[in-house]
């Protein structure tokens, strides 16, 4: 047995202890790692659940706000209804015009526009609707502006 190199007994003891220590450390590290992963997973999941419920809550709030918004829009539309406006205007003393006078203004820029609109209408009668609509819109906007000016005028 000249080739064999047996370690002395105290050395064997130290090596065994070193192995045990390493195992304990590895096991500890693994445990810590698993705990960390577990903690991270649980935290994430719980965070996700909380966020999920928060989203649900916010969605419900959004839906409620949308309902309230629709309600307000409906109220505005009702307040601006033609019958209400007419009643209010009459109560404030407005009346339909008794006589209308058209005053031709030479070289008034709108005339060129009107002439071009008329030409377009002939070229493409299908587009007339939009033009008539904008003319009406302009007329209405003008009327509302006059109404506003009258309201804001000092007594």
């Amino acid at each position, binding site marked *: 047995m000249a080739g064999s190199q047996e370690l002395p007994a105290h050395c064997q003891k130290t090596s065994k202890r070193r192995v045990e220590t390493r195992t304990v450390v590895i096991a500890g590290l693994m445990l810590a790692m698993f705990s960390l992963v577990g903690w991270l997973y649980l935290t994430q*999941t719980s965070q*996700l*659940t909380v*966020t*999920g*419920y928060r*989203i*649900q809550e916010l969605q419900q709030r959004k839906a409620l706000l949308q*309902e*309230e918004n*629709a*309600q307000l*829009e*409906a109220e505005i*539309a*009702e307040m*601006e*209804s*033609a*019958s209400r406006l*007419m009643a209010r205007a009459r109560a404030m003393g407005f009346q*339909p*015009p008794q006589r*209308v006078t*058209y005053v*031709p203004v030479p070289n008034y820029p709108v*005339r060129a526009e*009107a*002439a071009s609109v*008329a030409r377009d*209408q002939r070229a493409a*009668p*299908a587009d*007339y*609707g939009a033009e*008539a*609509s904008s*003319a*009406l*819109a*302009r*007329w*209405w906007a003008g009327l509302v502006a006059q109404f506003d000016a009258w309201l804001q005028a000092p007594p």
Partner: protein
Amino acid sequence: MSVEVVEADEKPRRRLFFLSAVVIGIVLVLVGQLFRWQIVEHERFQAMAAAEHQRARILVPQRGTIVDRNGRPLAMNVITYDVSAAPNLISDPYLAADRLWPLLGRPRDELINLLTQDVPYVLLARGVPMVVGETIMGWGFSGITVEPSPHRFYPEGSLAAHALGFVNAAGQGFYGVEGFYNDLLEGEEGVLHGERDPWGEIIPIGESQWQPPREGRSLVLTLDRTIQFMVEQELAAAVERYQAQSGTIIVMDPNTGAILATASYPTYNPNTFYEVEDEHLFTDPASGDHYEPGSVFKIITLAAGLDTGIITPDTPFFDSGSIEVGGRVIQNWDRRGHGNVTMTDVLVLSLNTGAAHVSTSLGAERFYAYVRRFGFGLKTEVELAGEVPGTVRVPGDPNWHESDLGTNAFGQGLAVTPLQMIAAVSAVANHGLLPRPYMVAQIIDQERVIATRPYLRQAISPQTAEELTEMMVAVVERGARLAAVPGYRIAGKTGTSQMPIPGGYDPNSTIASFVGFAPADDPQFIVLVKIVKPTTSPWGAEVAAPVFKRIAEQLFLMMGVPPDNLRQQAMAE
């Protein structure tokens, strides 16, 4: 000795056999049951199991809105609340009634009566506003339930009710565009499948499947709210002024067929459609009801005569006061003969004899070909639910008579809708091009906008349209002067028709009508006025023509159409 041993061995073996058979039997039953659960009724049990922890939530789409051509809302959605109670769960019904009656607008005694009944459910109020519903919910009264429900709301009230229709409590649209485009407006339901928590809510991080709802498409109508309102006011005033039964007015753009206003009286409020007792009130008289048009139809007869070249505006005609067609003697409205007249005079004086002369000269085949060409007897295909095609008897029909050729020429013996009539006369205003009337200008599908393109087809030649326009101008200038608006050339025609009753015509009732367009040389609008059973005067020239005038005056202002001389001067420059 040996026999006894054999007997002793047999007994346990039999018992064992019996026991084995019982066990095998039980196992077979269990296997059979397992087979049933796992294989045969697998899906049912899976569904039952899924129902324990799964939930499917239906996602209801929003119904599309309806706006006028300027974007003013005509139909929209709001949330209202239904308030109900379980009387047997209410501890103090008197206190509950005290708190509820001011908010629900019902008498206190009536509420006490409801809340003290021995029933499990009573409806206290339907469709209360959101603020009221939330206030009651806030009280937390036990036995009082407040449930939200989507509700269709028409902010303009009864405005354009016949054109809009209404939506019932189940969300189904009826009549008008609500009925015609119900499928488009209501959208498609979506669904959210997912795992649920103990409270029944879907777990946000659980497995889920989401199929979003398809929101309803919105509609932009050709109607103009301001014109519609004005027309409705004028119609209601006219029905009252002439003590009539009902009436209809349509305003259209003759160049495109876009309907700017359509009003009928009496009307209803679509917000409270359920209060209407007579369901006939829901039918739109403009497109869903027909009438004998009377002399307004002479426009069509003369258009056919001019277009085929058998007459010109100046073709002479001797009016003896009567004419016989198919064995029936046709007389003029004034029972008089007017001697030598022209075809323009036939229209101005509204001579039945002259119109019958033209139709018989044309012959049945050509006359009815023109009647069809103008769209009578066919639906206009306007986007309104409940449209009817009218009635035109033609040769070959079992109840057509030769005399019909004469009476149809002046609008008797056939039935048309007001919408057909105004569309037909629009062809005269529009160089002979007959427009298809339409009510929906755009369909908005989220980001996509589908615009309606006007559809026009040639009914008569431009020259015929021009000649007929001049003849119609003569009608207003020499005949129906009450329709004239100073400063504007207006083309029009009156009509007075009798109302058919079983066995003939009602001698005491008429339909007074007028159809006209302006300015005659460049028409911007066409208006049809129909007043049913006026009692102050039966004539279209005295009842419908003045209504046309009032409407035309306001339309000139609203549409910014200056008097002819100023407009022509501006155009020339």
